[in-house]
């Protein structure tokens, strides 16, 4: 696969949300607004790229039977790193995303890419893969965030274009599932073409 292909595959062909259906928890929980979705996507991408790089480097020397625990430690380290950095420099974002920052550890996308790609490919390709899947995830989360914010609050990225409230259900829990469901339908329709 070409380098460009590695980066763009996350948008459609291997879209982590709509095709691989991984990492559903942050996808549903943090997309109450476009900005939150974008921030969550970027946070996940940070961990994804770094863990992909390190794991592709150490994979050849890690004994087969303990590779999962070793990968989890590596991923957890980068997540903790991210937690500390966010607490220090973007405390407000850290507070908004809350529990879902530490939960990047158990985001199946990260461990999944480590297992399926980074452990078998070169450092460069693994980094590209991290960027590609990370961008795909960020884009999807932002789109879901935009849809929910437009319907639920009548605004985009905090810019209000309808006075008053939106349809509140879309900001609350049910709206997350509904929007994701209908976007999947749309994605399937378009992908068939």
């Amino acid at each position, binding site marked *: 696969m070409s380098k460009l292909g590695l980066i763009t595959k996350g948008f459609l062909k291997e879209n982590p949300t709509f095709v691989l259906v991984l990492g559903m928890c942050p996808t549903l929980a943090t997309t*109450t607004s476009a900005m939150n979705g974008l921030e969550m996507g970027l946070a996940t991408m940070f961990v994804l790229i770094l863990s992909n790089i390190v794991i592709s480097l*150490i*994979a*050849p*020397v*890690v*004994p*087969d*039977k*303990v*590779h999962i*625990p*070793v990968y989890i*430690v*590596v991923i*957890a*380290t980068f997540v*903790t*790193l991210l937690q*500390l*950095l966010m*607490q*220090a*420099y973007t*405390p407000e974002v850290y*507070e908004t995303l809350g529990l879902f920052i530490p939960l990047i550890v158990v985001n199946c996308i990260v461990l999944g890419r480590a297992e399926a790609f980074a*452990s*078998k490919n070169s450092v460069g390709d693994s980094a590209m893969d991290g960027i590609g899947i990370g961008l795909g995830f960020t884009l999807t989360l932002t789109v879901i965030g935009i849809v929910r914010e437009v319907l*639920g*609050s009548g605004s985009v990225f905090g810019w209000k274009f309808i006075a008053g*409230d*939106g349809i*509140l259900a879309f*900001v*609350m829990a049910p709206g997350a599932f509904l929007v994701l469901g209908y976007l999947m339908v749309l994605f399937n329709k378009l992908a068939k073409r």
Partner: protein
Amino acid sequence: MAAKSNLRNMALSLTLVCLVCSGLLGVVYVMTAEPIRKAEEAKVAASIARVLPSFEAQPEQESISVDGLDYTYYKVPGAGYAIISTVGGFGGPLSLMVGIDEGGLIVNTVVLSHSETPGLGAKCATELSFIDQFKGWDPAAKRLVVRKDGGDVDAITASTITSRAYTKAIANAVDVYSKLTENE
């Protein structure tokens, strides 16, 4: 591909990974400790600045127990007290900072954290017509109870439970204030 496993290299690789990772985290922890402390201080200072008139020095954090509950408060000489008061709201804890000046009047209130319903109870953090009614409130003259329950507080439309909790948090802060000042 992955190396063949035996007990020695399994134990070795796990130990090594854990050592390197905790070493790295230790370094980053030390590096970020100062910025994290500053960020927290800045947040507290910003909240205090909103609930009390001007102050200069970083106020000292203190705590007191009233009716079996622990409260954190900041004493600002010349301005009054900023008291953090947490109660159960509609969706979970609702945490307020309440500024009370030296005459016992409420200066302002600010929501520190809440988990109220978006668009309904969550308005308690943004709806000025609700928040501003507490500015300059005299707890001795007006009752800190929502109108529905026979008090003087105008509740947020369709969010009586949140309004009740908000009012209760302020009333608790007033109790803390009287406990703090009774011996002066």
